[in-house]
């Protein structure tokens, strides 16, 4: 995307030489390319559908997540309970719709955290160079070689109780999980941004800005950063999927959200012990995680193609 910003062409109402493609903004161009990637395009629709279901579902599907019905324990999927019930006769669809909100919220929040930390560190390293760059990259490499899951578990073990006491059960654990997952996923973004900065700051348009007397912060914020965002968006998409998997893994190990907050990983964890009697209990949440992650990965793949200037589509 670097160097190919026709912003001036669109800003000029006379249209210059009247080229028919003059009005295509980089975003419209990216969208056009994205649509060419069939799987990514359909994945985006499925993903939107799932997000809509999770957001609107609990208001439309009026079954409580804690409604206990001993008459129909471990019931297989039926008209009354589309996804079946668990060992207390609670409706799994209702629990999944509710839990999906948390799973997706964790994914998005952790991604935002990872991307902001990554962009800041990468931008500082890419602008400052010298020993600051070296120190930050050493830190990045150190974090990359940390065993993430054990440390994640350790941090949750150590900080769960105090945060629970400080912010309440749900919010406390949410904050903790988002911080910890986000805190372990910023490294690839930082490296990407730094590499982008290194190549962009030598480009002519940045040089022009510098020649016009733009200060370093202005060069960075107005010129370099917006042009380095393409790969970051791709990485951010993949990060959402990774964060959802991380949250489900924690819940699956019994160390994520408590049992009364039914995230997908947690339902799968609870259903694991009843697999021989009620396989739907573990199957549906697992499928939900899989479908979400798969579609997000496909969307990421499509975005990668859309933002890659070398691609001619």
């Amino acid at each position, binding site marked *: 995307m670097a160097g190919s910003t026709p912003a001036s062409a669109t800003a000029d109402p006379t249209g210059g030489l009247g080229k028919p493609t003059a009005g295509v903004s980089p975003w419209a161009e990216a969208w056009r390319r994205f649509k060419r990637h069939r799987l990514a395009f359909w994945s985006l629709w499925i993903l939107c559908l799932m997000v809509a279901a999770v957001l609107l579902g609990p208001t439309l599907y009026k079954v409580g997540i804690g409604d206990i019905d001993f008459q129909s324990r471990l019931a297989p999927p039926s008209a009354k309970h589309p996804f079946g019930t668990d060992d207390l006769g609670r409706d799994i669809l209702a629990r999944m719709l509710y839990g999906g909100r948390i799973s997706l919220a964790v994914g998005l929040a952790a991604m935002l955290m990872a991307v902001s930390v990554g962009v800041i560190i990468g931008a500082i390293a890419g602008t400052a160079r010298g020993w600051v760059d070296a120190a930050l990259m050493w830190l990045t490499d150190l974090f990359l*070689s940390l*065993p993430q899951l054990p440390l994640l578990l350790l941090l949750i073990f150590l900080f769960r109780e105090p945060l629970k006491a400080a912010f309440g059960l749900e919010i406390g654990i949410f904050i903790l999980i988002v911080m910890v997952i986000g805190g372990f996923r910023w490294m690839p973004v930082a490296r990407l941004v730094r590499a982008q900065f290194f190549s962009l700051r030598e480009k002519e348009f940045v040089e022009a800005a510098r020649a016009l007397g733009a200060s370093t912060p202005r060069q960075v914020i107005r010129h370099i950063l917006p042009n380095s965002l393409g790969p970051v968006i791709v990485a951010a998409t993949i990060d959402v*999927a990774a964060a959802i998997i991380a949250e489900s893994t924690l819940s699956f190990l*019994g160390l994520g959200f408590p049992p009364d907050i039914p995230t997908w990983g947690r339902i799968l964890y609870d259903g694991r012990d009843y697999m021989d009697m009620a396989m739907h209990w573990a199957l549906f949440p697992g499928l939900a995680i899989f479908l979400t992650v798969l579609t997000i990965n496909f969307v990421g793949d499509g975005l990668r193609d859309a933002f890659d200037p070398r691609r001619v589509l």
Partner: protein
Amino acid sequence: MFNYILRRLLIALPSILGISLVLFTVLALAPGDPFEDLANNPNVPPEVRMALRAQFGLDDPIWERYLRWLGAMVRGDWGFSFVSRINVDSLILQRLPVTIAVIGLSQVLALMVALPVGVLAAVKPYSWFDRIASTVAFIGFSLPTFFTGVLFILFFSIHLGWLPFVYRADLSETGWQWWWQQFRQSIMPITVLGLFQAASWMRYVRSAVLDVIRLDYVTTARSKGLAERVVINKHVVRNALIPVVTLVALQMPAVFGGAIVTEQIFRIPGIGSLLIDAILRNDTPVIMAVTFVFSCLVIFFNLVADVLYGWLDPRISYR
């Protein structure tokens, strides 16, 4: 060669120190006090508690505590488990071989799947084989290991009844029977972990081979009249593996994460399940030690990758 490895080891040392620093900081920042119980106990006067704190050095400055802890770790004095009342190092040594075996074998499996499939897909890009392989790989690495594990148990253990779904460390069989049972119970965890890795490696191998196969020296090799098999195996794959090794080394932390999950699903008595048990029972010395061992393993495998890198790419000299 020896000097090269030694130098790499010296580079790895600061990383281990850094990780130990991170670990210790986490522990020191964590709220909570090992003598909290005593504070609530009316029979223990505050002076005794203070004396205990002083005796265990909890009131010393933090860097002094770090150095003391590091010294103890280096000397091999890793404390003892609160729960099982045995030394942490012997507990870990007991569990480590299983973990290493499962991880090692699954990586070998991943390599055996990813390498041929990735190369074949890249040799004929956008063919049917490539399309199918790429899509399957995409699905493969979107499937979290805990879900594949559950699916495998559901299908092979419950539906078909072929394989046991609980890993037993104390098999009663002897001789060939023992190996057969061992094989039967290891096959699912190794496959779950191996296929997950294979899916992402296959993509790396494919794109790396695609990058190399268009280079001029490959055309030269072909025009010399070398057989296609020789061109691919001797000229393309070896060079394509160089970036793959880097990416694989970067993936090592994720592999260990996957191993923890797999051990938990199949109830394998490795250090991953030891960690989970220790966390669920607040067994702090074991948690610290296992996390540290995991860090060391990650660094060790990075070292192996570095050595492999030197072997694959003669331009990196072993000076």
